[in-house]
């Protein structure tokens, strides 16, 4: 048993009732996936005829033609491709049900005092219908980030999700990144110029750096712009423990982000980055990763006049780490399929195929500090695994079997499956569909 698994069992033991379940799990037989064409993500070439043994939520062993342990449940992958479960580096999963209905949206603030302090973790809905669909498309991890606050240029703080079936297991970690947005449409909230966005961001970091938790009844300086909650929320950012995720497309804004990084040494993740290819070498030199949408090839806004289909390929060639978050509603409603299509399109336009897979696994894992438990298939890591019916980067492909942290979940979208069953042309009835 790996150290991680031991730690998990120990943690369970101190959690009372849970411990009984965990102990029972530990005695459960292992699962062995055999005859897999396994892309571990640790090398370019697959392991042919691979065996992957999982138990207690983690991978116990991996290798070519390994003999499964006695008593293991055998799953025959029949030569199909197996990959880690995928990860989208940018969604609003758990924060959104029907986007046209404000009652069902929790990812953005239109008013109120919160900016940097807007932490989305308290809104997460594990029973959202969007979660099983994303999971059933092969997505096992996701960043869910806020998309608006009244305190420019802050959007708020993102959370890291694991799309496990247990509702209590959804939140992997809160406070994973502080999101800010600059540029065209976002400038309005800063007063009308992106320059104000940068000035406000720099000021906020400056004020947060000087911020001391006040003794009871003592206010901050009278000219401090930052509220107490926002200043406190920025403490891990100014301490360099929480990355600053800067949403920007235009080259000038990307260069401002580089400059801010150079001056503050704060960790930065670039989101969007339509024109990031123009700054590829500079991003690579600073090891700033880019989370991008490979489908963007139109001047969709005046900030994205340089958008092109080989953005991902050019960034990779320069040595920039890339992950995927497609825009519009595919980002969340089709978080799994949308991310796969994005990676596939990047590959069609020059990105090596294995890098398309890495943009959905090891790259976001590294960006968000998850590599010790997620991203590749290796002994001791979480058993997030997908058996695919074809090339996972082809939009027509789909998962055959999926495990999230060792728990097998059903492929496809359960609600969609119920509707499809009810209205299937292959099964007719004299009774109205509601009886089927």
């Amino acid at each position, binding site marked *: 048993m790996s150290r991680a698994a031991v730690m998990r069992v120990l943690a369970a033991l101190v959690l009372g009732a849970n411990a009984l379940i965990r102990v029972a799990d530990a005695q459960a037989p292992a699962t062995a996936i055999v005859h897999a064409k396994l892309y571990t993500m640790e090398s370019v070439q697959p392991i042919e005829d691979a065996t992957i043994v999982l138990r207690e939520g983690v991978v116990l062993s991996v290798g070519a033609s390994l003999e499964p342990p006695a008593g293991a449940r055998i799953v025959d992958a029949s030569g199909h491709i197996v990959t880690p479960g995928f990860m989208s580096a940018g969604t609003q999963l758990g924060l959104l049900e029907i986007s046209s209905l404000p009652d069902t949206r929790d990812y953005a603030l239109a008013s109120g005092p919160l900016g940097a302090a807007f932490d989305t973790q308290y809104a997460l809905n594990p029973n959202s219908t969007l979660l099983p669909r994303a999971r059933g498309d092969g997505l096992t991890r996701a960043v869910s980030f806020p998309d608006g606050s009244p305190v420019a240029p802050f959007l708020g703080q993102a959370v890291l999700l694991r799309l496990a079936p247990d509702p209590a297991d959804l939140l992997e970690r809160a406070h994973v990144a502080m999101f800010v947005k600059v540029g065209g449409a976002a400038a309005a909230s800063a007063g009308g110029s992106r320059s104000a966005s940068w000035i406000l961001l720099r000021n906020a970091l400056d004020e947060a750096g000087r911020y001391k938790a006040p003794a009871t009844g003592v206010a901050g300086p009278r000219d401090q712009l930052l509220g107490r909650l926002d200043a406190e929320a920025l403490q891990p950012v100014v301490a360099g423990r929480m990355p600053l995720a800067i949403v920007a497309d235009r080259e000038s804004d990307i260069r401002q982000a580089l400059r801010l990084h150079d001056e503050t040494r704060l960790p930065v993740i670039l989101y969007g980055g339509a024109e990031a290819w123009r700054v590829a070498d500079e991003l690579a030199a600073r090891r700033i990763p880019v989370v991008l949408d490979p489908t963007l090839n139109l001047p969709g806004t005046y900030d994205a*006049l340089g958008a092109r289909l080989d953005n991902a390929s050019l960034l990779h060639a320069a040595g920039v780490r890339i992950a995927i978050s497609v825009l519009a509603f595919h980002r969340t409603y089709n978080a799994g399929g949308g991310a796969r299509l994005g990676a596939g399109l990047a590959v*069609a336009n020059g990105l090596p195929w294995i890098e398309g897979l890495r943009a959905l696994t090891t790259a976001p894992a590294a960006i968000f500090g998850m590599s010790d438990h997620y991203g590749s298939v290796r002994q001791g890591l979480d058993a997030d695994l997908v058996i695919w019916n074809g090339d996972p980067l082809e939009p027509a492909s789909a998962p055959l079997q999926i495990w999230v942290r060792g728990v097998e979940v059903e492929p496809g979208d359960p609600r969609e499956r119920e509707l499809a069953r009810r209205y299937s*042309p292959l099964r007719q009835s004299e009774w109205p569909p509601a009886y089927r």
Partner: protein
Amino acid sequence: MRDFAAQPYPSTYHPLPRRDTLIRGATVLDGAGRRLEAADLLLREGKVAAIGPGLVAPDGTVIVEAAGRWITPGIVDPHSHNGNFPTPYTGEDLLHTDANEDTDPNAAQVWAQHSINVQDPGFSRALAGGVTTLQIMPGSMNLFGGRTIVLRNVPASTVQGMMFPDAPFGLKMACGENVVHSYGDKGSFPVSRMGAIAGQRTAWTQARKYLEDWRRFARGDGKPPDVDLKLDTLAGVLTGDIRVHVHCYRADDIAQMFDMAREFGFSIAAIHHAAEGYKIADLFAREGACAAVWPDWWGFKREAFDAIRENAAYLHAAGACVAMHSDSNISGQRLTIEAAKSVAAGARAGIRIEPEVAIEWVTHNPARMLGLDDRIGTLEPGKFADVVIWSGDPFSIYSHVDQVYIDGALAFDRSDPARQPGSDFELGQPSAARRGAHAP
């Protein structure tokens, strides 16, 4: 008698310079349900002249070797906003666009052709995705959104230069949430679905009288009615000269539209979006209306919550006419991939759809929707020579469009920058300039 479908702003389209061309040795999906291996396709004087193995080209014919590549008819996008919702988008677009005249729920008098910005970069991107014909739609904020326009996807300095000669007009109608929200949120009519239907029935009733007044005048009975541009469009529908395209999601809403068509004696060419089409697939088959659908858009509003990926396959299995549409300048560059997603969902549900059938969803069937299947949509001899050569299987994300022919002219060539048209807007933009070692 007044011609309600007259075109006083007529097409000036001329085919691009062209040469007779023989494409040899490709896998052909002809759009008429056939798949041919190692087949040749001869394009002569802008028409498909012959298709089959071992064709012989007359002297002077350009020969294109396409062994290992795939050929399909030109892709037809029956629902695009290229030109009337052009990039780049700005904050202004939140206030007003050229796609919706949402000042009156009956905007039957507006024509999409009067909004088109021919310099929308979306046109050239769609061309690089194999799109040869597009229907540009008014938006869905109105009960009657206005007339649609069908364009050839060739660059021109005026919309007249892009208009598909002698293509029928369409009328965009809408039901459901968008209309009710756009007016209801302002507190004006209609604020409900029943109000929306009443608004449409009232307009059709007026149009019926308007048409009867013109017919009476044509019989020499009295004075001509005052010309009414709104009622012109609706009367053109009642005479069968203007095709009806309805934006509608829910099964129960769609059924209301079919009954409305019967009440006033017109037919519906297509229901667009049809998120719940699968719930009434047999009704689509009986009515003969096409369903123009997305493969996987769902959930973004209440009436899209039951959209399932099996939608297209279920409609197809019931015998309905299915077309993929984009409503997007991004997915509109990859309509074959959209079809591939729907085919895959069908296969998972036990409905097998072969590539030679699926290609009809993006060629022949949208051409039927537009009333143009006598001219485009298949590679049968005599049809317009709209052809796409793909580097591989058109349903694979890794395949590229190598060449696009429109009326027999090479309108796009992936290997020849001189045959890659671009918008004036994108000229001289420093941030788009290809530079340095990374230039392709």
